[in-house]
């Protein structure tokens, strides 16, 4: 899996490309740890190019979410393929993740929170 990080503004944008499974999930957690080590706690994951996800990949996302919560931050997801979205629904993870249709919607939600 290819992981690209755009860490410029208030929200760190992470772009995932490929399969999110046991091995790549571990890599993703390591990448996110580097971001947390910079005291960043607002993370957006763009899953547009995730072509495959399994329960190990989901587990890594849950782990990241728990870390974000510990750091009193926010984690958003966007651009899920319909079959990925379905897996989130079946496993009921759609109830605990903030999922947006597009990255623009997700990022603007951070601005609304800041404005409020």
């Amino acid at each position, binding site marked *: 899996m290819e992981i690209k990080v755009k860490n410029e503004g208030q929200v760190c944008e992470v772009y995932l490309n490929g399969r999110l499974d*046991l091995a790549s999930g571990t890599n993703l957690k390591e990448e996110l740890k580097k971001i947390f080590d910079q005291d960043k706690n607002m993370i957006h994951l763009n899953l547009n190019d995730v072509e495959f996800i*399994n*329960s*190990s990949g*989901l*587990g890594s996302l*849950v782990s990241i979410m*728990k870390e974000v919560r510990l750091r009193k931050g926010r984690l958003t997801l966007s651009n899920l393929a319909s*079959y990925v979205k379905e897996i989130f629904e*079946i496993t009921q993870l759609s109830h605990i993740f903030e999922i947006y249709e597009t990255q623009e919607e997700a990022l603007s939600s951070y601005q609304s929170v800041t404005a409020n």
Partner: protein
Amino acid sequence: MIKKEFVYKSISENENKMLDDIEMFLDENKISGELKNKFMLCVSEAFTNALVHGNKLDPNKEIIIKYTLSNTTLNADVIDEGHGGIEKVNKRKRPELLSESGRGVGLIKHYSSSFVISENEEGGLQLKIVFEINKERVNCR
């Protein structure tokens, strides 16, 4: 009837190899769309279960996957060299919402037409995943 068999050492790097192999097998047999995604997911869950819980990532132990494709079904048998796996699967509870593991068998159950768990003579777990394909193929292509 088309049959194919793959054998993997129990190392985490082989998860990706297994996904490449299954993708190639499905592409060769013109299985695409939702059916491909769902079948890959189920086999991947069974493989991870065999790798982590069955063979406990012991590189000396192997995982065998046997694929069978007929006009009506697409099957995968995922066999490990562990012990007591069937008891563990039977004892499994629904995972907590914030749990980082434990969703695999639920996903297999949801997506497959049927699945059967058994133990072979050596005590290894054999998970048979069956997809009835005629209706799916019409819907997915």
